[in-house]
């Protein structure tokens, strides 16, 4: 009974701390729920999506009929009911209209009945695919009809037979895997395979067996077994998991980012929990001391205060999980736009239970230290005799080790990568270590500054007031700001690399092999402004007269100097290029051949301005000096060139011309047909479908990323508030003394805001430096994307943070300022 009142009143008395504490718990649980649940369902979705991209669980590729060993192994599995099989044959062939008037290179897919196991072939008519694709019939892509001038119901000569065009295929689940193709799709039923009579000696056919595994858990095992039967060079056995695509690669990065943000938010929220609890118990210190004086043991005190902590924690848990579920749903809706509609985006209950358990762990972890500190409260503090109790060190060590283990475990569990777990924890520790060293240093310098102005002097003095936790506040603030800045920077970098790379007006048709003599005619034909890129193929033979070891180069897994490069010539930078070394593209004071190289080349081999590269341009040697080093600002589908020369150098070299253009999707087929007719040697690559899918997807993902940024910002604001609150008590006393001594409100306000400003500025600058370093490392070594510092917006965000800190600080001190000193003094039971 007495307990209930006590708890209620204690919470009410420190309602602000309690609310903050509750919010911190809620935040950590929200992030946990969202991440455990959401990333679970996203990766589930992605895997299912990956299944659709491959239309099967296991995919066996070969350029021959399957070897007997593999075939019988598959048959065995089918007989045992473990798998289903559907085969298809894919190859290029020239198809012609029945009247032989037009022909077009097409990509044939001869499919068996079961195809596809996952996903669905959507036909323009909406009818089921296999109802339409019966023997003697064919289903084709629209662009084929456009290019042949044919329509539904017309006959099509394919191989040695004639098929009737029955429908138009709108989408094909496993098409995106092969983004580039030289011709439109033609579907043929496997029953017509013999009639086509195209599979003969010398034919180049891709034989694919799609396998669907009855028991999902058996996929890897069965694939492993089949691999043993496959002949290593000729037959490839993949599961939908192992086959990587660019989309998957991106989504991997994306999930990695989300998880990183989630863990960061958790850390921030954890720090918030610790901050608010410490501040909370600081306020309770006197009560605790009285209790001890009366003879309460440590355990009894904990028993009294536990509910005071647990209640807001419980409330926070409920709040956090509810918010997490809502967020999950919202995100699911966002994602579902580009994921297949039948994908269940159910709330991941396991994720919720897991996050509950984790949430308790987090709360316990971050409550440990403040609760333990209770033990160190000596009853004598009620006499205000001994202010700074020397803290014992072991609890700090224990909790530090606890944090490290916990987060290492968390990172490891989510990233499934031991090395990354180490990196993560190491960098986190480094972050805190470096911050505290720098803080110490900066404070040391500040202390020694001689400042004339009283306001400034007082503010700086305030930083060093007895018992003030300036250093720990700065460390915490810096750590959390670093995290927020990092997330922001990472988001910006991901956005630039991926999202902005797919603008709606990106070119969707690439035209290659235009002859120089055709350029003008082609330009007139297209009737839109085009950029023509001359391409000269060449190899690099030596750098600074040191011959390139081609074999060693090719042994490198990355891009290397052993391959053939496309050189070009022009005198200006492309829109997405900038020079990072050298003053301009080419030097005016050099007369011998010059070359501007892309920074990617410098990554392959160390080189610098003035170094020489020897090329072999189709048999002819050319030595050029490096005049500048360029970098690309985006990672687009757009053209880029490693080596750019002056026109005079390459004018005479054999070259073809490349260009990219933007054409409305429905006009693509028609235009392609006309280009082929007018410029038969020119090849057109249609990227429109791919680009469209990417662009839409990127937009969705960017929305989600932004959402998480906001979440982390919220975490940051919370910790900010809690940090300011942590020092509130000291400031109250000070303001009272200022006022008693006759200082006006303005003076007090100035001193406080300046003090907070200094704290914010130090933290902000430190955080900026550290987040830049961190994001650089992450971009460079984990995501492998280009890194941009975004200095301007960073400056802006530091400014905004400062404003926010000062704002929060001011708001939290308003009540102090308004308080009459007398009332305060009366409340303060002093000797």
């Amino acid at each position, binding site marked *: 009974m007495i307990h209930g009142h*006590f708890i209620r*009143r204690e919470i009410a008395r420190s309602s602000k701390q309690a609310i903050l504490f509750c919010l911190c718990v809620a935040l950590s649980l929200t992030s946990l729920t969202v991440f455990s649940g959401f990333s679970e369902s996203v990766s589930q979705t992605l895997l299912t999506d990956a299944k659709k991209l491959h239309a099967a669980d296991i995919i066996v590729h070969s350029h021959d009929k399957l070897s007997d060993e593999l075939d019988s192994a598959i048959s065995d599995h089918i007989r045992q009911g473990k798998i289903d099989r559907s085969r298809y044959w894919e190859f290029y062939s020239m198809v012609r209209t029945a009247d032989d008037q037009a022909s077009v290179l097409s990509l044939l897919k001869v499919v068996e009945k079961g195809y596809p196991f996952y996903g669905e072939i959507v036909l323009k008519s909406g009818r089921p695919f296999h109802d339409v694709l019966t023997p003697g019939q064919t289903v084709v892509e629209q662009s084929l009809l456009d290019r042949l001038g044919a329509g539904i119901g017309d006959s099509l000569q394919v191989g040695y037979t004639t098929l009737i065009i029955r429908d138009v295929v709108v989408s094909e689940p496993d098409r995106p895997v092969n983004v580039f193709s030289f011709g439109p799709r033609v579907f043929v039923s496997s029953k017509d395979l013999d009639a086509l009579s195209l599979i003969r000696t010398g034919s180049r056919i891709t034989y694919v067996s799609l396998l669907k595994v009855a028991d999902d858990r058996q996929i890897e095992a069965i694939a492993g077994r089949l691999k043993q039967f496959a002949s290593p060079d000729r037959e490839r056995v993949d599961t939908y998991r192992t086959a990587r695509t660019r989309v998957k690669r991106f989504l991997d990065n994306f999930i990695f980012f989300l998880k990183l943000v989630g863990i960061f938010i958790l850390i921030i929220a954890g720090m918030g929990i610790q901050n608010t609890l410490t501040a909370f118990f600081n306020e309770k210190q006197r*009560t605790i001391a009285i209790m001890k004086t*009366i*003879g309460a*043991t440590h355990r009894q005190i904990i028993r009294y205060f536990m509910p005071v902590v647990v209640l807001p924690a419980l409330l926070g848990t409920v709040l956090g999980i509810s918010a997490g579920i809502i967020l999950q749903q919202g995100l699911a809706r966002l994602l579902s736009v580009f994921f297949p509609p039948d994908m269940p985006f159910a709330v991941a209950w396991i994720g919720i239970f897991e996050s509950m358990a984790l949430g308790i762990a987090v709360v316990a972890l971050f409550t440990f230290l403040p609760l333990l500190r209770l033990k160190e409260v000596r009853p004598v503090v009620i006499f205000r*005799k001994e202010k700074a109790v020397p803290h014992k060190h072991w609890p700090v060590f224990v909790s530090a080790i606890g944090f490290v283990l916990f987060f290492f475990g968390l990172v490891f569990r989510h990233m499934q990568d031991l090395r990354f777990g180490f990196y993560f924890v190491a960098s986190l520790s480094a972050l805190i270590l470096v911050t505290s060293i720098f803080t110490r240093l900066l404070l040391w310098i500040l202390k020694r500054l001689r400042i004339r102005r009283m306001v400034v002097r007082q503010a700086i003095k305030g930083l060093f007031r007895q018992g003030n936790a300036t250093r720990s506040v700065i460390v915490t603030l810096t750590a959390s700001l670093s995290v927020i800045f990092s997330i922001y920077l990472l988001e910006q970098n991901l956005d630039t690399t991926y999202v902005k790379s797919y603008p709606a007006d990106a070119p969707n048709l690439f035209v290659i092999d235009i002859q120089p003599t055709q350029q003008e005619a082609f330009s007139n034909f297209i009737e839109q402004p085009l950029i023509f890129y001359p391409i000269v193929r060449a190899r690099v033979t030596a750098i600074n007269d040191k011959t390139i070891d081609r074999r060693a180069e090719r042994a490198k897994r990355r891009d290397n100097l052993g391959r053939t490069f496309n050189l070009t010539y022009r005198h200006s930078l492309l829109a997405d290029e900038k020079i990072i070394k050298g003053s301009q593209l080419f030097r005016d004071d050099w007369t011998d051949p010059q070359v501007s190289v892309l920074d990617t080349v410098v990554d392959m081999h160390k080189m610098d301005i003035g170094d020489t590269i020897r090329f072999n341009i189709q048999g002819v040697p050319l030595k050029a000096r490096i005049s500048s080093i360029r970098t690309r600002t985006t990672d687009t589908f757009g053209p880029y060139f490693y080596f750019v020369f002056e026109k005079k150098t390459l004018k005479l070299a054999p070259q073809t011309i490349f260009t990219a253009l933007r054409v409305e999707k429905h006009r693509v087929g028609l235009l392609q047909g006309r280009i082929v007719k007018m410029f038969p040697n020119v090849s057109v690559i249609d990227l429109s479908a791919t680009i469209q899918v990417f662009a839409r997807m990127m937009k969705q993902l960017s929305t989600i990323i932004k959402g998480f940024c906001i979440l982390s910002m919220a975490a940051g604001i919370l910790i900010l508030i809690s940090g300011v609150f942590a020092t509130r008590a000291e400031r109250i006393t000070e303001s009272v003394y200022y006022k008693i001594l006759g200082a006006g409100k303005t003076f007090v306000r100035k001193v406080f805001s300046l003090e907070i400003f200094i704290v914010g500025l130090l933290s902000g600058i430190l955080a900026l430096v550290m987040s830049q370093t961190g994001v650089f490392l992450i971009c460079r070594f984990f995501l492998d994307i280009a890194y941009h510092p975004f200095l301007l917006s960073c400056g802006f965000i530091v400014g905004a943070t400062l404003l926010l800190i000062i704002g929060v600080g001011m708001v939290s001190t308003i009540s102090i300022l308004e308080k009459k000193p007398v009332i305060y003094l009366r409340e303060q*039971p002093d*000797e």
Partner: protein
Amino acid sequence: MAILEAKALNKTYTVDHQDIMVLNDISLTVEPGEFVVITGSSGSGKTTLLTLLSGLDKPTSGRVFIDQQDITGASEDDLAPLRNRMIGFVFQSFHLIPSMSAMENIMFPAELQGLSNAEKKARQLLERVGLADRADNLPSQLSGGEKQRVSLCRAMINDPKLLFADEPTGNLDSKNGRIVFEQLVEMKNEQGATLILVTHNPEIATAADRVLTLRDGRLTHKIQGLG
């Protein structure tokens, strides 16, 4: 048998790397039922002495025995039952727990001990000091005198053998001060407890069995009053 004994107590504070000696070689013995006043000018270290004698703080050197038990090396948790059952405190600034009502504050030590009749006992005490109608008020709703009477009840609820009072009337007007002081002495006598009281109020000092005067951290023994 002495209920309280101090041997060669020293207390030094370190401020800005400078040692300040607050108490210097203090030894004393208090017999059961005695009423001892510690007095001295401001800053003479009398409150510090009280904290050392009551085990709220540890001396830099020297030993304190309560009921023959050496408390100098005891941990906070070892001291807790001792404080709870043996000792009662009354402070100048009351130190009631702000989130507990008068009643709850008084009951608290008994509850810590796990007494079942805590409420009954608390009510009796409240009646005794004439505050029965204030039982459910929070400390912030009580006047200074009322607060001090509540804290007196709290100090007495576990029938302590040792009472420590630190300027119990220091924050009160003379009328309330007298009431509180009288009630304190009354209760002490009824209980047969020992009272150690810090004050610089000479009026109170006259009521003591013995007055110890502190000057610059040293004790100057002075017998006064009726003895």
